[in-house]
């Protein structure tokens, strides 16, 4: 059986562990063997985004030490994958040996839907859901990794599902990490518009592949529209749309 290494974003580890578990059961279901480095911490994205490159470098080296020999590394997040794939080689550009290791690692890191569809060539994972869903195209997944058809293929293959299109589906939800907390006036207006588009789509459920967007959109729904849900694609596929935590 093929091994795959789990890259668990710190947001998932701390706040959304059920997404990590959903990913594990999904990978097992399609016949790969998930392995887990217990020493993993954070990819360094918060430090990088705040400008603390020296600290982000420490995270990068730690990650490379841990995952450096893995054949395939999969994360339920696009922004964390972008960090490893795109930012590590640049961050470590002035240290030739580390640069080499970062560059060699980069092509082996995948976002979950990308790994399932592009590497394993699986789109039907045996899930079923009676209802309609809309899909939010997270910025780092769509523009950072160029991943858009893969999650849609996985959703369409779910038995009984009715995928609906949503206005401005490729628009940022206003998360942006520290941005959401530091510029609430802008961030709230953005998430409000995103939720409005979701409500207008008439979908029963909003699916996305990025923990950050889930915290933002989900956090807004929880406060203002408790009857409406946003769900990570991994949970949706693993539990056929049921809320299991």
């Amino acid at each position, binding site marked *: 059986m093929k091994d795959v290494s789990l890259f668990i974003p710190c947001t998932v580890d701390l706040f959304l562990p059920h997404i990590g578990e959903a990913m594990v059961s999904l990978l097992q279901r399609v016949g790969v063997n998930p392995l887990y480095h217990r020493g993993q911490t954070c990819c360094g994205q918060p430090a990088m985004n705040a400008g603390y490159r020296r600290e982000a470098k420490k995270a990068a080296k730690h990650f490379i030490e841990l995952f450096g*020999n893995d054949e395939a590394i999969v994360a339920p997040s696009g922004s964390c994958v972008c960090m490893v794939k795109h930012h590590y080689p640049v961050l470590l550009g002035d240290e030739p040996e580390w640069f080499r290791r970062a560059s060699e690692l980069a092509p082996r890191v995948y976002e979950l839907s990308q790994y399932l569809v592009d590497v394993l060539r699986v789109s039907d994972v045996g899930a079923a859901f009676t209802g309609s869903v809309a899909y939010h195209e997270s910025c780092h997944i769509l523009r950072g990794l160029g991943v858009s058809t893969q999650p849609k293929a996985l959703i369409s293959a779910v038995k009984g599902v009715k995928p609906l299109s949503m206005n401005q589906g490729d628009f940022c939800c206003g998360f942006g990490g520290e941005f959401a907390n530091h510029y609430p006036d*802008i961030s*709230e207006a*953005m998430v409000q518009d995103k939720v409005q588009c979701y409500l207008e789509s008439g979908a029963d459920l909003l699916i996305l592949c990025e923990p950050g967007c889930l915290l933002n959109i989900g956090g807004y729904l929880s406060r203002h529209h408790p009857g409406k849900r946003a769900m990570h694609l991994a949970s949706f596929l693993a539990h056929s749309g049921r809320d299991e935590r």
Partner: protein
Amino acid sequence: MQVSTEKFTELVRREVEKARLRPALKMVPHFLHEKREAVLADHPDAPAAQAYGGAIRSEALARLPELLEEFEKNAISNGAKVFWARNAEEANAYIVKLARERGAKYVIKGKSMVTEEIGLNGALSEQGIEPWEADLGEFIIQQMNRTPFHIVGPAINIAVEEVRDLFLSKAFIKEPTLDPVELGWGARLFLREKFHRAQFGVTGVNMAVAETGTIINLENEGNIRFAKSSPRTQVSVMTLEKVVHTMKDALHLIRLLSRNCTGQKITAYVSMDSGPRKVDEIDGPEELFIVIVDNGRSRIYQDPRAREALRCIRCAACLNICPVYRQIGGYAYGWVYSGPMGQVLMPPLLGLDKTQDLYRASTLCGACKSVCPAGIDHPDLFLYYRSLDVSADASAAQRFNGKERPWKETLFFKLWGMAVKRSWMWNSGISITRPLMNAGSRGGAIRQMKGAFRGWFRKRDFPAMAEETFRERWEKTVGKGTDFKSVP
């Protein structure tokens, strides 16, 4: 123009509220973006054309000193006079002097962002020379004493009712009307008179071609062409980075600028001037002055990373697609430029210490980068500027006045950096934080929090920290010590 980039958060609050009251406003950039998409799709290979634009701009900047000298040489041999201005004051003083020497009572202006940047209108008025903006949008905001809301459509936010009232009060129209054509006609009749007697015209420049010494302007109203050809004296103001090597390069940028800017294959007017009127020519100005303004750009040029910001060709595609610009509009950015292009350009121009919010108020969503015909990676530049604040002592940071971050943040990331490479420390950090964070949680959700995270909780909940992290759950199910092969 007054700089209020330090009041960003305050301005944002006001502008978001204004935008909320006028939902139609958000649709203007949306329509411009849709138009762009449609026309660009008509290009045989749009991504390749965009990438070529980036290559042209990148090469022009890499060879900037050499190309500027070549441009100057050729412009002079065409009969133009070239003046190099180190800053706004020098540029304004020179133009004011030219106008006074020629006894100009007023100056007719074509739409130009650089003259907004250097505050030319104010400098002329102070000397009793009246500046008249001849672009309809610029004309409206000049009459209203406003700053540009958008770099291409400076008055796109002004409601037609406001324009009607303004034009009535200034007697540009006699009867009230909301018909844009009639309103435009009113402005046109008024300005026609100004054009007719104009002695002195001032315009900007879209491209300056080094190999021919030609300056190029794109527009849709004809005011720039009028301002360049009708008066006896023409002054064209450009910033250093406007130069490109060949006419072929310029033609490609014209294609891209038209499509990305207004969603046109070509703008209604494209004018190219190589020197003033020659003896055997029937029209054109008798004298042409080209003012090349630095105003901080040679400092940006010295930084190979920040130099990318100078690639911008002012198409505003990044404004139109930006989800932040759509919420806050152009005023909140606090100076001449707005949207992502302003967020990459204004910090090194004005200093990072005065513009921190501009490169921090971004979700790094990358929409700007995805449409840029000059190949600017805006999010990456934001990250670069942020890093210069943190390393405020480095030479690049000093060049742009990097400002140290708050000590609490610095301390946090110092500790974070220690823990991130030691999982035992990371995990004990989690155990210590959990009860503190979850103290006020109910039903698995935190609904409010005071202090540093209050911004989030104004309108959003956050999940409580899991009783067991993923790692802890994994250890329980799979058993301790089942780390696999490569763990050191």
